[in-house]
């Protein structure tokens, strides 16, 4: 054991040694240590370099507020985590940590030059310079600034760890497991409530873990904690979550908790989640988030060895570590004397107590004097000395008139400081509760709650132990039962609790305030804050943004109130008038992975596959993502690329027969006596005259008149329609239908059901399709007369009950066989087997080429939300006799009939060879330079194997009046001449489709 480690006491196990590395050097700690306490136990105070000036820094605190001790912890090449607070990193065997923001080493850091040049780098300096020469910001200055900024190094390999998530509900969520939180949980559990109690630390107890003087009911504080935990663990309605930070308070009492599951383990079990995100909806919330000790702002207050008094006490009492051999305490309240007394008792020499107050006559100062500690009142700190560790402090005694009576330099290797406490109102403020300034405590305290929430204990300015526990009992009982009155009580006592506080910079009586730090991590000093006010930044939000105070990874936990007080002083206004910056989620930095959870790879979004998917995969299909669906795009054979495969598939459909999986098309069953009326009101078409057994191509517009979706609609019965939609449009079309059905036309007797997945849909297309299906269908006459184009019939296919629709998106004689989904693969196989050499499976790419040859649009490709039915050449589909349908009124506006609207046309390259690029623009005038006058764009473009030339569809201004004219597609290599042609390239008479 080192000289720094005490022989006994604390929450560590000295018999269990833990080896660890810091910056490549081997050290030893013990079980129960944090990385911070283990480093201190090895005499290591220098743990980091500051963000801007690269000043050497030691640990300031022992907890979540730590601004200096940021390290990178490395488990393996992929498990590298930057910017962890050493005070929160639990030590495990083999832990490997690195300091940050220094080069080449922590002891000797070239970046320190910034410190010597610091007069050139006041707050906001970068707004005033680096503007010349123009363009140099990006090429010259910014890269330098970027390299200097940042803290740790981001991981460079994918994180292999798992992250879990869960939702939970409870009657009472207690955030914070110190005395107040434990008391609240006990009292809430007494009422029979479902309770969740969480604490960010590895064990419950809060300040009691560091307070050997505390007594509760006559025994030690720890005994009470142990008993409370035993009681709570035994209650099945209580969930205890240690290592769990309540990081966010969201509307309607939803809290986000981050539970760390494996970071403290030397060898985490394989597959175990590293962290779990809890989303807890609580009927009531009790915030028992405690308070954070404030640093004192004096010159040179940032040297390693200078830390919060409470932190020194925690390191001693909880971790058994002395932070030095000879310490000076700088304080403005009684409580911190207990730290001096504890250290004194542990053999640390207390060189002096510098008390900023004119008098210090309380019990603790008296005890300190009795212990032989020199107490200086009316004291101030004029500076400190030391390189990588403080070695002297310069104290002054104020004469009461603004001068210094005596100056004195005291040798020391540790300085403890305390400006009192800042209640942790982060979660309360996130909940949009209103804070109020408390003058005696010099703090903002919770005032009006916005949610069903109560703050208890130190986070609302109650600091004495008995008061804290009583507050917890009362709030816990009330949160659970809705009634006031508590069943429990204790007698408790601990040192301190006087609540005296000090804010802002110490009086310097004219001495320089150089290097009086307010925000340690961002190197914001008193001078920076004063400069900001001088430059006219008066709102605290402006000061914060200009100086960056409070914007570091600690989010101002130790700095915000000191900054506020200094700004208020400079502006000569009361603190509440300067305002308080918002507290934002998260309370402490929270891992991205925990928000993402299991949502990665195939779990990022559902992968929807059709019943025939595996068959296509076996056949070597290449798939594309369409919405959530995987669709076979083409079926390459041998060494075919996409174009060869598509050409082959197209020719096969045109000459024989193709088989295509159309199952992803959306299907909606519209049922009820008013089904036809309902569709009349929605779709542009007329449905009243559609006979049972017939199909019609339908177009759905939005109310603004633009095409929203399309699809074939079959009338299965007088009161039953089978409506198909685009693959991507299925959900939103159904949602739109439900909106009109429920909210505009509730009087209609009509109901809607998605049947997309009820049916497997097998498109059999091509001149041989009828022959092929003959013999596989029963009870259905698929002959040309009995089942003409655009009709539907029920029957059995391969012995399975289903329906056959005679529809074609290919331009050939074609059928779509619908069978219940579980039979899809069997029927597909049967049809495919029957087709032998005459049948060719094809994918979406071939489907697109075939339909483009016929001039059929794809909604979303040939339309883009600004296209009307008429623009797309579909005015024929509009039911002319209808008084109204969704979109009709918008289509009556003059602009919707302007002759120069973009209209769907076909384009043919004049050279007969060049395939236009989809998205390429269309111009009337050749040879233009940017900015060009453009009149349209190419929406679909393919090589047509069957026509042996390229084809394209385009939206062109006034396009239909331009038939036969020449237009130009400007490409980087020059214009491509194109001829405007009708969009139907293949079989314009439709003879094949009606075969």
């Amino acid at each position, binding site marked *: 054991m080192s000289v720094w480690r005490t022989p006994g006491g604390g929450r560590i196990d000295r018999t269990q040694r833990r080896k660890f590395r810091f910056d490549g050097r081997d050290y030893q700690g013990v079980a129960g240590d944090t990385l911070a306490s283990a480093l201190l136990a090895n005499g290591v105070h220098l743990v980091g370099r500051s963000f801007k000036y690269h000043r050497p820094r030691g640990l300031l605190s022992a907890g979540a507020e730590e601004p200096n001790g940021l390290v990178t912890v490395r488990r393996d090449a992929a498990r590298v985590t930057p910017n962890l607070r050493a005070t929160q990193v639990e030590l495990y065997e083999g832990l490997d940590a690195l300091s940050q923001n220094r080069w080449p080493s922590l002891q000797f850091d070239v970046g320190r030059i910034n410190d010597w040049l610091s007069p050139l780098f006041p707050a906001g300096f970068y707004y005033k310079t680096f503007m010349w020469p123009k363009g140099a910001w990006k090429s010259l200055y910014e890269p330098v600034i970027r390299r200097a900024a940042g803290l740790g190094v981001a991981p460079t390999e994918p994180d292999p760890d798992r992250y879990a998530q869960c939702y939970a509900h409870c009657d009472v969520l207690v955030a914070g497991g110190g005395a107040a939180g434990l008391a609240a949980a006990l009292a809430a559990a007494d009422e029979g409530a479902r309770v969740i109690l969480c604490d960010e630390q590895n064990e419950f107890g809060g300040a009691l873990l560091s307070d050997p003087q505390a007594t509760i009911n006559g025994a030690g504080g720890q005994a009470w904690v142990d008993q409370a935990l035993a009681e709570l663990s035994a209650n099945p309605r209580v969930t205890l979550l240690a290592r769990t930070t309540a990081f966010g308070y969201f509307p*309607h009492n939803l809290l986000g908790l981050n539970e760390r599951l494996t970071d403290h383990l030397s060898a985490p079990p394989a597959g175990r989640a590293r962290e779990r995100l809890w989303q807890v909806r609580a009927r009531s919330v009790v915030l028992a988030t405690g308070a954070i000790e404030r640093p004192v702002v004096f010159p040179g207050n940032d040297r390693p060895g200078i830390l919060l008094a409470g932190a020194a006490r925690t390191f001693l009492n909880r971790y058994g570590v002395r932070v030095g051999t000879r310490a000076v305490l700088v304080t403005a309240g009684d409580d911190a004397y207990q730290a001096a007394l504890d250290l004194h008792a542990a053999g640390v020499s207390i060189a002096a107590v510098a008390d900023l107050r004119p008098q210090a006559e309380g019990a603790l100062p008296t005890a300190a004097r009795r212990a032989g500690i020199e107490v200086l009142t009316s004291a101030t700190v004029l500076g400190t000395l030391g390189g990588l560790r403080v070695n002297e402090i310069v104290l002054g005694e104020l004469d009461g008139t603004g001068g210094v009576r005596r100056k004195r330099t005291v040798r020391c290797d540790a300085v403890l400081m305390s400006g009192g406490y800042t209640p942790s109102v982060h979660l309360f403020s996130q909940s949009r509760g209103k804070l109020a300034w408390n003058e005696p405590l010099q703090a903002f305290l919770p005032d009006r709650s916005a949610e069903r929430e109560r703050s208890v204990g130190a986070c609302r300015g109650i600091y004495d132990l008995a008061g804290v526990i009583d507050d917890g009992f009362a709030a816990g009982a009330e949160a659970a039962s809705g009634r006031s009155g508590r069943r429990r009580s204790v007698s408790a006592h601990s040192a301190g609790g006087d609540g005296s506080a000090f804010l802002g910079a110490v009086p310097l009586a004219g001495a320089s305030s150089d290097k009086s730090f307010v925000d340690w991590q961002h190197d914001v000093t008193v001078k920076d804050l004063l400069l900001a006010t001088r430059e006219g930044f008066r709102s605290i939000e402006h000061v914060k943004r200009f100086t960056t105070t409070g914007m570091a990874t600690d989010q101002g936990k130790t700095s915000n109130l000191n900054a506020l007080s200094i700004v208020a002083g400079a502006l000569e206004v009361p603190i509440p008038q300067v305002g308080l910056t918002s507290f934002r989620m998260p309370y402490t930095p929270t891992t991205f992975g925990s928000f993402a959870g299991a949502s990665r790879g195939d779990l990022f979004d559902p992968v929807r596959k059709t019943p025939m998917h595996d068959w296509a995969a076996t056949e070597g299909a290449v798939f594309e993502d369409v919405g959530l669906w995987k669709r076979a795009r083409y079926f390459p054979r041998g060494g075919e690329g996409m174009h060869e495969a598509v050409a082959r598939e197209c020719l096969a459909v045109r000459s024989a027969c193709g088989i295509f999986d159309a199952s992803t098309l959306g299907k909606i069953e519209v049922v009820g006596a008013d089904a036809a009326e309902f569709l009349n009101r929605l779709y542009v078409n007329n449905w009243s005259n559609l006979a049972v057994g017939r199909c019609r191509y339908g177009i759905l517009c939005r109310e603004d008149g633009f095409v929203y979706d399309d699809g074939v609609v079959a009338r299965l019965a007088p009161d039953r329609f089978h409506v198909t939609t685009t693959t991507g449009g299925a959900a939103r079309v159904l949602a739109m239908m439900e*909106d009109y059905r429920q909210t505009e036309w509730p009087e209609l007797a009509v109901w809607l059901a998605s049947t997309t997945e009820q049916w497997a849909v097998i498109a059999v297309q091509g001149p041989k399709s009828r022959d092929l299906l003959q013999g596989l269908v029963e009870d259905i006459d698929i002959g040309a007369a009995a089942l003409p184009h655009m009709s539907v019939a029920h029957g059995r296919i391969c012995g399975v009950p289903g329906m056959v629709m005679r529809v074609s998106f290919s331009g050939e004689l074609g059928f779509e066989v619908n069978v219940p989904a579980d039979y899809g693969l069997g029927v597909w196989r049967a049809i495919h087997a029957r087709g032998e050499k005459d049948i060719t499976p094809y994918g979406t790419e071939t489907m697109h080429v075939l339909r483009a040859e016929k001039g059929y649009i794809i909604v979303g490709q040939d339309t883009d939300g600004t296209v009307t039915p008429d623009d797309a050449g579909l005015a024929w589909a509009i039911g002319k006799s209808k008084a109204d349908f969704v979109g009709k*009124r918008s289509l009556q506006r003059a602009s919707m009939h302007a002759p120069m609207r973009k209209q769907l046309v076909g384009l043919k390259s004049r050279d007969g060879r060049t395939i236009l690029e989809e998205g390429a623009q269309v111009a009337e005038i050749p040879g233009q330079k940017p900015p060009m006058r453009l009149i349209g764009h190419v929406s679909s473009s393919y090589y047509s194997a069957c026509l042996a030339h390229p084809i394209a569809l385009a939206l062109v201004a006034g396009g239909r009046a331009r038939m036969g004219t020449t237009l130009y597609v400007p490409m980087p290599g020059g214009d491509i001449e194109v001829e405007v042609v009708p969009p139907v390239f293949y079989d314009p008479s439709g003879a094949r489709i009606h075969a």
Partner: protein
Amino acid sequence: MLLISCPYCGDRPEIEFTYGGQAHLVRPADPSALDDQQWAEYLYMRTNTKGVHAERWRHARGCGRFFNALRDTTTDRFAATYKIGAARPDPAASEPTPGTAR
């Protein structure tokens, strides 16, 4: 994630709902009787209320029903939810409980 009280199913998490915009907009019975300005008002003009806003929600991933709600857009607190077709309640009559949708 808000907690929203579906008039049919009770309190449910926001992820089960879709937002439906301003409530009590009725599609004109005869749109062709409106001039372009009046039609544009129906199509696009919204109160965008800062304060208690009557709005539509759909319990899309639950019972599927549309319903109306009164929500204060400055606090996201719900004062009431009510079925389509019901009159807009008086928000003052039901004092909202903090953080609790009713």
